[in-house]
């Protein structure tokens, strides 16, 4: 089909279809008595959304759980064998260890850098410029970031910036991505580079919400800048820090792209995300892949419950 024609059909036609649905429901509602309409209407409005949510998230997740109890081809029930198989392999513990390193160091540095940059930029006039620079990597795809950092980490000191710096100070070039745990830490650096902008923006918004009078009052009473930061800013920022930290922990658990693009999960850098992909497509073991996905989901459930509790608390004060 002609590309331009298809583009027009898609961009105009698809939204028109969705709009036609909602307008159509109102005509259908005219068939029922006026008093029953408000009882039916909400369901018609949320129906498309729930059709998508059920088809693409809820049903598939339940289905994945069932598949995780089946064999590689998905035609025989094997109970918890997939899980036991994973936990009895040393490679899987290595994978979990890597995810733990991601959670600790990725989350830690992103939050710390986010706070430091948010607090410092608040005090200078070129705030906008610094924030834009830190935020740029958020707009870049993981794949492009993988290319950027593959270039930075290249072994050849005439190509790789990091090895150029090492040789400039008299060292020998290092195969940066070949040895564990160095490679995992260097991949985490890429993640920090990409996600600090996110933390900075949210923490900065939280910081602007703290009243300047309060800080001024503390300074008048003789508190120095460190006391102001640790005794006032940090405690008041704690709820915002919790929001950022939970989001970053989930990101750390789900990490896939950076590792897939830069090392493909080899040389000991495997994480849950890449293991899932490899089980599914390289090893072709649907049951094990599903088990990996469910383990990932279970690891996220506590964070999810925390999110829901926080949301409900927020609703309560609304």
């Amino acid at each position, binding site marked *: 089909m002609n590309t331009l024609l298809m583009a027009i059909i898609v961009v105009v036609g698809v939204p028109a279809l*969705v709009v036609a649905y909602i307008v159509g429901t109102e005509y259908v509602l005219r068939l029922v008595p006026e008093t029953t309409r408000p009882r039916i209407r909400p369901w018609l409005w949320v129906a498309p959304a729930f059709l998508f949510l059920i088809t693409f998230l809820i049903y598939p997740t339940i289905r994945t759980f069932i598949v995780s109890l089946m064999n590689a081809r998905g035609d025989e029930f094997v109970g918890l064998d997939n899980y036991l198989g994973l936990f009895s392999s040393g490679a899987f513990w290595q994978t979990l260890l890597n995810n733990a390193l991601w959670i600790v160091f990725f989350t830690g540095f992103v939050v710390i850098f986010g706070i430091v940059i948010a607090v410092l930029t608040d005090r200078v006039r070129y705030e906008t410029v610094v924030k834009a620079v830190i935020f740029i990597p958020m707009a870049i795809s993981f794949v492009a970031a993988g290319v950027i950092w593959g270039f930075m980490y290249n072994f050849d000191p005439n190509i790789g910036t990091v090895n150029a710096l090492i040789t400039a100070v008299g060292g020998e070039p290092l195969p940066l991505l070949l040895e564990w745990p160095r490679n995992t830490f260097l991949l985490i650096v890429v993640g920090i580079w990409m996600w600090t902008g996110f933390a900075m923006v949210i923490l900065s*918004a939280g910081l602007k919400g703290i009243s300047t009078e309060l800080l001024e009052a503390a300074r008048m009473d003789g508190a120095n800048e460190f006391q102001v930061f640790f005794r006032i800013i940090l405690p008041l920022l704690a709820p915002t820090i919790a929001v950022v930290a939970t989001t970053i922990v989930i990101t750390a*658990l789900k990490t896939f792209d950076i590792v897939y693009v830069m090392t493909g999960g080899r040389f000991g850098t495997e994480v849950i995300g890449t293991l899932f992909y490899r089980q599914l497509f390289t090893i072709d073991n649907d049951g094990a892949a599903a088990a990996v996905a469910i383990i990932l989901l279970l690891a996220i459930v506590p964070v999810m419950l925390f999110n829901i509790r926080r949301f409900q608390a927020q609703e309560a004060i609304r």
Partner: protein
Amino acid sequence: MTAVNGAQPGYRERTGVAAAIGSLVERWPIHLTLVVIGLLWLLPSVALLTSSFRPANEVLTTGWWNAFSLPFEFTLQNYQDVLSRNNIGQSFINSLFVSIPATLIPIMVAAFAAYAFAWMDFPGRNALFTLVVGLLVIPLQSALVPVLQLLTDLRITGSFLAIWLAHTGFGLPFGIFLLRNFIGALPREMFESAFIDGASPVTAFFRLVLPLSVPAIASFAIFQFMWVWNDLLVALIILGGTPDVAPLPVQIASLVQSLGQGWHLLTAAAFVSMALPLVVFFGLQRYFVRGILGGSIKG
């Protein structure tokens, strides 16, 4: 909400040149830290951008920093090569085909649901919305295989339709959450007077809610667009790697594997993929920031 572009100096500024110099000297650690961090963050992107404009033999034999010493040698050859020979041009168009409907559909679907959640009464409303909040964090991995199976049964894997539907499903929880918080904050009196004047909910939605929700819709649109544009996993699994449908991340990922050390081409290809999101981001950054905040903070 003051974020990326709403600078408000926390300090009361003193007037006069002497005071300005005094404050500069006194606060040099702050400036130094920020400049160093800024340069560190910029360095990798500058390395990429510089290399993409250098001749191939230069990129492979000398470091990118040599580009800034005489003689200056810059070229557009790498861009011509990747756009014509490595399917990057086609992938750019594919990415647009994937991203635009995959942004438009969830906006509409999420806005309908958000309006119902915010302003209509029905049993189980809060429970269902809590479910949406829970779905916000579901990892894609736990849904992907059955989704792939379903799309295979429908015989639409490898088609744009399949990836539009999938991205709509995956993006909806965030969209509903963000839009419901925004639409729920609109004034109640406005709806009451509209209904007294005989407006139907459809009229109220299209005449009042949509126009007033433009900021929230824009932020969700940008977020969803970036997400879809930059996505590798869903595209890899649902579209596969055939060049006539592969979007940019898939194409570049396969270039990384096939070209290996072809840095002059990889850097150009990576920059092509970054160009549009960067334009979108810098053009609409205040909406982008609001999208991230997503009601988590009332600013």
